[in-house]
């Protein structure tokens, strides 16, 4: 499953047509090629997140969808610098990206802090929770991790989840700024 997901994302990422269109838009709007490359990567990540979280609603082509996400991300970056996007943003594009501005980019410092909490959890638990969040079935998790069966995988997942939640509760700062 992960292999297929990564293959699909890789195929999308390597679609130079979409990337070039986005880079061109950014170049005309206070950015350069590197900004475009970075933003395209983030757009693919947001696409993946939207699919995983059930927020993906494809009403046009995938390239338009990805372009809208990229444009939206760039608009947010420009806003932080008090700049504006020259290109207009249609209501349809806003709706189709299905994104909340605050949910797109999590503060980098907070990310680093949360990562430090995760690192206190064992690698095995990190792996189990990652597979679970990627919607692997318990059978698949058991298979991937060499566990006897799905019920053991389920128990392991709960144990890991409880450990992680305990780590979060033990670090009250992790709850700050949760939107």
């Amino acid at each position, binding site marked *: 499953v992960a292999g297929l997901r990564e293959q699909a994302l890789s195929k999308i990422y390597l679609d130079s047509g979409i990337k070039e269109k986005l880079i061109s838009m950014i170049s005309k709007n206070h950015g350069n090629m590197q900004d475009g490359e970075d933003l395209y990567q983030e757009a*693919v990540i947001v696409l993946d997140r939207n699919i995983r979280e059930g927020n993906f609603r494809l009403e046009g082509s995938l390239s338009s969808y990805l372009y809208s996400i990229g444009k939206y991300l760039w608009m947010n970056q420009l806003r932080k610098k008090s700049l504006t996007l020259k290109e207009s943003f249609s209501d349809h594009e806003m709706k189709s990206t299905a994104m909340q501005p605050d949910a797109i980019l999590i503060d980098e410092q907070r990310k680093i802090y949360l990562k430090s909490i995760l690192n206190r959890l064992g690698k095995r638990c*990190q792996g189990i929770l990652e597979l679970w969040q990627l919607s692997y079935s318990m059978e698949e998790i058991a298979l991937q991790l060499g566990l006897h069966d799905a019920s053991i995988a389920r128990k392991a997942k*709960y144990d890991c989840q409880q450990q992680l939640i*305990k780590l979060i509760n033990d670090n009250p700062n992790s709850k700050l700024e949760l939107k």
Partner: protein
Amino acid sequence: MNELNLNETTLDIFEQYSKQQLNAEEQTAFKNKLDQDHLLNAQYQAYLISKQVINNKIEDSLRIK
């Protein structure tokens, strides 16, 4: 409930509630419960953060360094 005995059933309900998989009546009932029970609400917030933590790891793995 305290932070050490967050049981499997509660975690399952958190999951279903966050994904809006409960029926409308259950969704409202659980929301009311969260509004009234501060400890449960705190646990739910911790649960949401735990999801965010894992999500960050998944997304980091997609980034080309």
